[in-house]
């Protein structure tokens, strides 16, 4: 187990190194000049050159990347070009909001998705089942910005139940979390349905029924726990999808998280921030996948980690 863990951690570190190299190279090679952004339109060629030298952007790629990497291993993500503060501080200030949104979204999608999946599995083949599966399909096919705008329109503008945007209280969280969660709930309900159907087919369920247990007891005590466990591991993988949606959802709702930070930085070519957010997101994705793999043998002891 310890050996496996070490090996996986080493692999994860390598992947993150790769992500940093690829992102750094893309931002280095792309046809956008951050120095022009910083200096402004009216700057002279001399000023532009000076800024370029100050930031070390006149150095060859290898030197620039090495400098970034040595900073990175000391926890230094560099300084924002335009905001004159440390990227690590900017991200640290925004991270709690994004994590809160993530927790909200996960709770929403698990509650909604698992409930729908269980009901569909128990009523397999019925009209309820078909309706729920169509709803799930709509959930996974809906563009998040449209869902966000529509929820805003109905529940904030028309009904006035929730604020139109912003951050701070529980009611601020509901609409963004629901927007993020609707996509995931579609996936979870489909997975939960097939997992539950699979479990209900097992011999031990028939045994439980045969020995005279009530149907609801069989479902709650025997089927449900076994069907839910494989789904739990999926939460780790879900992180990747979440990290994608965060930019759009945070900008629709004005949610002050790292997604909005990234979007503002992208528009102004503030490369250190783009690098920082990409790396933090990649870290989250890699960690999520790692956790999903580590949790699996606890859930199903037949699976051994190698």
């Amino acid at each position, binding site marked *: 187990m310890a050996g496996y863990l070490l090996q996986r951690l080493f692999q994860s570190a390598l*992947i*993150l190194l*790769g*992500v940093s190299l*690829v*992102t750094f190279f*893309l*931002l280095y090679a*792309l*046809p*956008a000049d951050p120095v022009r952004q910083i200096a402004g339109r009216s700057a002279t060629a001399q000023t532009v050159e000076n800024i370029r030298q100050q930031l070390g952007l006149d150095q060859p790629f290898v030197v620039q990347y090495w400098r970034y990497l040595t900073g990175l291993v000391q926890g230094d993500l560099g300084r924002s070009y335009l905001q004159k503060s440390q990227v690590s501080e900017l991200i640290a200030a925004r991270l709690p909001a994004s994590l809160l949104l993530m927790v909200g979204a996960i709770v929403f999608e698990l509650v909604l998705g698992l409930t729908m999946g269980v009901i569909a599995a128990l009523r397999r*083949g019925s009209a309820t089942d078909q309706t729920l599966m*169509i709803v799930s*399909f*709509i959930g*996974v*096919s*809906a*563009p*998040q*910005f*449209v869902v966000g*705008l*529509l929820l805003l*329109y109905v529940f904030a*503008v028309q009904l006035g139940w929730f604020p139109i945007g912003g951050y701070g209280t529980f009611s601020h969280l509901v609409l963004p979390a629901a927007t993020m969660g609707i996509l995931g709930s579609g996936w979870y309900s489909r997975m939960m349905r097939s997992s539950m159907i699979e479990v209900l087919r097992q011999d031990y369920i028939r045994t439980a029924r045969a020995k005279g247990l009530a149907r609801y007891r069989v479902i709650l005590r025997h089927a449900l726990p076994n069907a839910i466990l494989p789904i739990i591991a999926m939460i780790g993988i879900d992180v*990747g999808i979440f*990290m*994608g*949606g965060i*930019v*759009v959802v945070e*900008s629709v709702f004005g949610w002050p998280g790292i997604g909005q930070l*990234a*979007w503002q930085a*992208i*528009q102004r*070519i503030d490369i250190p921030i*783009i690098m920082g*957010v*990409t790396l933090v*997101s*990649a870290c989250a*994705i*890699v960690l999520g*996948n790692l956790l999903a793999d580590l949790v699996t043998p606890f859930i199903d002891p037949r699976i051994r980690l190698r």
Partner: protein
Amino acid sequence: MTKAGAPEISAETLPPSALSRLAHRKMALVGISLILIAFLGAVFAPWLTPYSPNDQMFDGLTLEGAPIGPSATFVLGTDLLGRDLLTRILYGARTSLLIGVVANGIALVIGTVVGVTAGYFRGWVGGVLMRFTDLMMAFPALLLAITLAAIFQPSLWIVVMVIATVNWVQAARVLYTETTSLAEREFIAAERTLGAGNLRILFRHILPHLVPTIIVWGTLGISTTVLLEATLSYLGIGVQPPTPSWGNIIFENQTYFQAAPWLVFFPGAAILMLALAFNLVGDALRDVLDPTQRGSE
């Protein structure tokens, strides 16, 4: 002898039976109809509407200069500039379908080449390709796409390239797994003993077996692509106005959406319908084409 070890469902016999099984699925038929509607709407747009997509009509705005809601003259209303929304949505279908098919096609080709090469040749080539695929999996795809699209001068072809760059990874992973298990089967070994070269084995024996998987991922991938294009265009870094795209219609009009919700609702519904359609068809295809799934409905 060549076919001796092959499973009964060779790719040649699949299409008719698979198609007829597909036709028995209600959801698949719904999906196919939706795709047909979008396709016909895109092709016959000039005949279906009396307006042109960029006409800023004199009577397209109220006296106060606000967009007009759905009415007899403008079935889905008009946008902020007094253009007919239905017309822009019909022409926007061209953008969505074009990008959906082309970008996803390129992604699928990249995914197939990477996955099959890595799975068949293994060794250091396969190792390098799959490590790179793992690396791409760790990227937050949408963030990467947004960064790329924002930094280039936005245009339709940049959007296509960005989507292809981001979207090949899933297909590569799936095809890699299938190819490795195929390459170990007896009929491939037999073929090699008979003196067949790598190219012959790849094109005559491996690829035909992968056709079902490629079709399924190709269909599901169009859905992802349509959503990604809409998202990029919504952020203003995808297809650029005045070329209509469902995403950029919402982008152009969102400041006004509290007063004119139809400007978000109708293009949004169009995006949802098209993405849903390809998901439904892809899902049904997976059930129909995958022999292990058969009967488990």
